[in-house]
């Protein structure tokens, strides 16, 4: 029996900056997972991943990561993916610093 498909987002790292980015429904790469397209169909996920892997001039190492529907948009499921949305825990560097600077 095949496992039930769980929702995914397409993610990778930006080619020049190296930071974590997520694919949006309108084919942009966002640094905010909440803007990502939450994909609930397996065939669609495969197609979106293929599309992402074709964007080698912008993104490195695209893959499908588990996500769930949150209040403001997709949220990470695994702690590794959660860290990628924030940055390291020893300094306020990475996305968490950008968020606090903007907010």
């Amino acid at each position, binding site marked *: 029996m095949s496992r039930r498909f769980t929702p995914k987002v397409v993610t990778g*790292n930006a*080619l*020049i*900056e*190296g*930071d*974590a980015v997520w694919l949006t429904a309108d084919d942009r790469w966002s640094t905010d997972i909440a803007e990502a397209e939450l994909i609930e169909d397996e065939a669609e996920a495969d197609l979106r991943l293929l599309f992402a892997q074709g964007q*080698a*001039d912008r993104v*490195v*190492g695209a893959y499908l990561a588990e996500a769930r529907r949150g209040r403001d948009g997709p949220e990470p*499921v*695994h*702690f*590794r993916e959660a*860290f*990628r949305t924030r*940055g*390291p*825990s*020893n*300094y306020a*560097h*990475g*996305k968490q610093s950008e968020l606090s600077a903007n907010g």
Partner: protein
Amino acid sequence: MYTYSEFDDRFVRERVAQFRGQVARRLDGSLTEDEFKPLRLMNGLYLQLHAYMLRVAIPYGTLNPDQMRQLAWIAERWDKGYGHFTTRQNIQFNWPKLADVPDILDALADVEMHAIQTSGNTIRNVTADHFAGAAADEIADPRPVAELLRQWSTDHPEFQFLPRKFKIAITGSPNDRAVTRAHDIGLRMVTRDGEAGFEVIVGGGLGRTPMIGKVIREFLPRADLLPYVEAIVSVWNLLGRRDNKYKARIKITVHEHGIDEIRRLVEERFAEIRPGFAGVDQAVLAELEAAFAPPALRSAPQAAYDAAYRTDPLFRSWADTNLAPHKSPDHAIVTISLKAHGATPGDASADQMRVLADLAETYGHSELRISHEQNVILPHVHRADLPAVHAALKAAGLATANIGLASDIIACPGMDYCALATARSIPIAQEIATRIDALKIEHEVGHLKIKISGCINACGHHHVGHIGILGLDRAGVENYQITLGGDHTETAAVGERAGPGFPAEEIVPAIERIIFAYLDLRDRDDETFLDAYRRLGPAPFKAALYPAEKERADAA
């Protein structure tokens, strides 16, 4: 210290120019990521969780002040104002942007540094005793040999596509501070009939299959070193398992074929290639020995030291903990802790790097060392200068008196940075150190090595920690396994797993229970944790670690 020859300089500059072209071709689309990745890795550039990471080689852990200042400048100009010193005596920058990396490499070349062979299936940066050239117990400075190995291994055409990475460590002292028994090749200087040579150890390593290295040659004359090492790498290059990266390291080759068979093959290969080494290597080595000539140490009264030691308890505590015996009795080896309680192990800010550079220049014959324990060393300081050094360190937040103690923790970057990690290590190290400081017990506890890795690859050397901690992902939650009784010295041992792991919020209390159990169990104040563990075995420590299980057993 060694200064680049014209050849070295041209080679490094050419490599930077090549990489500049490769980055440009990656950015304009002429190279795919699959094509580019091995090229960037050859230049020490990784892509991690939040950014690229550049790993810069610090050969055998030796730096001069200008190099340290340049690292500070790079940290400020292209990174976030700090650098991370690693367990392989390298420095890592955690936030460079791809387009800036060629400029960073040029800035490194300006001070005779590079990031070549800090990654990939090559012979990596040769590590050495961080007290080299200064330690009272040393037979000879191992760095001329380390530099000879660096020159030989850099861009060696036979060894650019090895089955896997290959690491060599070297020590000139019988007391092993370079973890030689956990390297692919470990070289430990020994004497026989008054002649200095090497005990050659092969097939050690940590990672998912930890192995203590085996002695392949009890005594190797110095003149045979290069051909013998070449013979080892050459035998492994043919035998090594390229079919399975988890079985590719030489430790597995030695394990599968047996040390006797490997020895036979190596000796055979050695006999074949030895005549080809017609003495050029020895001529080069003689030049290198001159380059590493010991500094002209001054003779002066040490009244300033005695006075500070008598009157200043902070200085006394630091001197008792952070100084090691120098060859010259009126000098000391100063270890500067990058482990302030609660800080990230191994991190130094650009300002701190400049303070370290200035101190080395003013008081330390312009020498700095990085240890695999992620601290910085001033190897040659006159005792009279120690109070001034301590005062300057205090002002820079660098005077923590904890070398060799429970808060002097080795930790890999873990899942705060590393793409391979399965859990975080840095916050665990920070919390343990903070707790130990709050308890004010580490000086009473004494010599204790806690080492933390955030995955099975064991960059944090957890297998050889007296207390080792391994972070894993257990069903989507960070979980920490404890090993006990590891040892990284000449009496090397792999720690034994204590039992089931702990969630992040329970690991600090668990470590605290082991430490208090040890204080209860030791039979005298100077019996170290490791000695007590060896005397008593794991049982009483496990009982402290898992009290609920003990209660259940008692009730049954």
